């Protein structure tokens, strides 16, 4: 009898423990933290595409409704030998709000990147009206001449101002600029900022990209890392995003962004103290005629 009671107690305990455990698992079931792969889940290509699209659509919408944003960047460019130079930039963004029936944006945002240093180019500003399917519309303002010039934006793969960032890397990453394939899920981030990511292969659909594909790590609303592959399929650059903080109770922003070029060992480090929302920006400020007033 005694043995039977012990067995009964042990069984009850294990059932309680098991149900507790399984309860925890089911509470987390929409964000499974067990590593999986498309193969282990036996996903068809169609299923992998749809799973990838769902992840990126969710991530993309986390950044909606920011309305406008301003941030002062410190850019540190380091060469292979370790010597570095610093530049100061300001980014202003204006959100465009055209959506399709899925609630996904169909117009690229408008942005102005202006230089605060080095002093001989202070005031130089680049205005971009981003497009999803064709070349962006781009103007540059040269303060020494007071001249605004429309420039070609075919140069998506060219490097921005001698940094390791291509123009397409600094352009806003819109949902409809890529096709997606879910590859796997795994732990990601850093020791300080650990996370769990869906790893997605994304292939640019916009013209003149310098990449055959990108592998991107999405941790819910936060993009943690992008591996860029060149047209020969070789790993070309790696970008990591750290020091994430949330704004407006919704929009996550990384305040520490590093691009490493594996070809030449150079890297570009962007440090942003804070992002400023609810600026009094107007659409008319993001026009070529207004560029000379930007400071």
């Amino acid at each position: 009898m005694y043995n039977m009671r012990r067995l009964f107690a042990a069984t009850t305990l294990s059932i309680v423990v098991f149900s507790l455990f399984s309860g925890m698992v089911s509470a987390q079931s929409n964000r499974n933290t067990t590593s999986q792969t498309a193969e282990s889940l036996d996903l068809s290509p169609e299923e992998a595409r749809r799973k990838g699209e769902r992840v990126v659509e969710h991530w993309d919408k986390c950044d909606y409704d920011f309305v406008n944003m301003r941030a002062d960047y410190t850019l540190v460019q380091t060469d292979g030998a370790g010597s570095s130079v610093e530049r100061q930039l300001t980014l202003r963004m204006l959100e465009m709000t055209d959506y399709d029936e899925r609630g996904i944006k169909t117009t690229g945002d408008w942005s102005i990147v202006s230089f605060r240093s080095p002093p001989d180019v202070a005031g130089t500003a680049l205005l971009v009206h981003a497009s999803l399917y064709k070349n962006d519309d781009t103007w540059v303002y040269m303060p020494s001449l007071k001249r605004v010039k429309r420039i070609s934006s075919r140069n998506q793969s060219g490097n921005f101002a001698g940094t390791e960032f291509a123009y397409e890397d600094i352009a806003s990453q819109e949902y409809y600029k890529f096709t997606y394939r879910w590859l796997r899920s795994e732990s990601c981030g850093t020791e300080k900022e650990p996370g769990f990511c869906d790893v997605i292969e994304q292939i640019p659909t916009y013209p003149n990209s310098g990449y055959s594909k990108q592998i991107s790590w999405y941790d819910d609303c936060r993009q943690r890392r992008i591996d860029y592959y060149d047209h020969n399929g070789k790993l070309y650059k790696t970008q990591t995003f750290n020091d994430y903080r949330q704004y407006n109770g919704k929009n996550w922003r990384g305040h520490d962004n590093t691009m490493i070029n594996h070809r030449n060992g150079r890297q570009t480090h962007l440090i942003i103290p804070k992002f400023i929302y609810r600026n009094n920006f107007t659409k008319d400020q993001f026009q070529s005629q207004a560029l000379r007033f930007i400071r």
Partner: protein
Amino acid sequence: MDELPDGMRNRKPCLISVVIFALASLLWAVLAMAENASRTYELGGYVAAELLYFPDDPLHEGQSDVDVVPSMALEPEFRAIWDGGRSQIVFTPFIRVSSDDYDPERNHADIRELNWAHFGSNWWTRVGVGIVYWGKLESRRIVDIINQRDLVDNVDPDDKLGQPMINLGRQFSWGSVEGYLMPYFREGTFPGLEGRLRGPFPVDTDQPQYESTLEERHTDVALRYSNVIGDYDFAASYFHGTGREPRVTLGKHAEGYDVLIPHYDIIDQVGLEVQATLDALLVKGEGYYRWNNGGDFPVFGVGFEYTYFSVWDTNGDIGVLCEYLHDGRGSLAPPTNFDDELFLGLRWTANDLDNTSFLGGGLFDLHTGSGVYSAEFTTRFGSNWKIDVKAQVFTNVSPTEAVLYAARKDHNLLVSLSRYF
């Protein structure tokens, strides 16, 4: 007092001082009224040391025969910004001091900018002395008329004298419209008797003649409409007032030598500018029709710029420029070296951290074959130093090209080292 720079040796120094003082006080008042908390100040600008080298001996009587002309230029920029960047006051004086044994006219000072600018929700204004750039082409500034050229400073057409103005602009759904009211005319600067890069006789800036009895106090007006539709950027402009380019007639200087007397007419000018941005190809055109400047005449230019990006597996771009320039003016109009010219150029932009770039080209006359070759190179070193090298060579100049023929021995090389702050 005859050592004073030209800009200060004006016939009406008193009036100018009063106007500048009044303007400065007005801007000071605007600044004082602005909200204190968000106001920031910036100091920018540069100081430059420059060597100008003429390899050939001068051609004309009176010209200085020094072949290396050292000079210094200072252009600080003071800026106050408030209202989240929507309001600013900028003050940019400029002074050049050249070596004594060269043209004293080149010692000059100017106020490039002293204005208050405000950008409202869909309108903007700028009150004070400012600089405005119009146009699309690279080899000649055709429609650009708001500012007088500072021809004595350098060979660069982009050196301009600050223009006093009230500028008002508004953005509409159908484009933007800007108006300019310019209450004071800036007389052109020209090389003096000792200077190079001039005609056989220097232009005497001490005895200008004006069509208007108000002389330089005639109020000039300009209007410009501009818009962007898809790949096309375009603008139309109208100017009425004292023409920036003077006609010239032969006269006598106070000291007895022959000079050219500048005559400033009241002109009308209608201008057009277009640029199509078609992938890597930019197609451009600009032109005007001008009335009453020694006749009525059209001037225009058309051309393209094609860019090869990331050439030879580098980060650099190569741009190919080709522009045709036509000038329909007659012999009584202000002199120019353009009539029917073809410009061919090559631009290299390194896209490096130091903004290194090179632009080289040739301007060829389609009738006489006269050529002007020019090249410029610029790069930064450290974060505050910049070096500029510019060269200009005249070849095969025909005697029928009066302006170029007079300058055919004035090949020049300019090296300048600037420290920005």
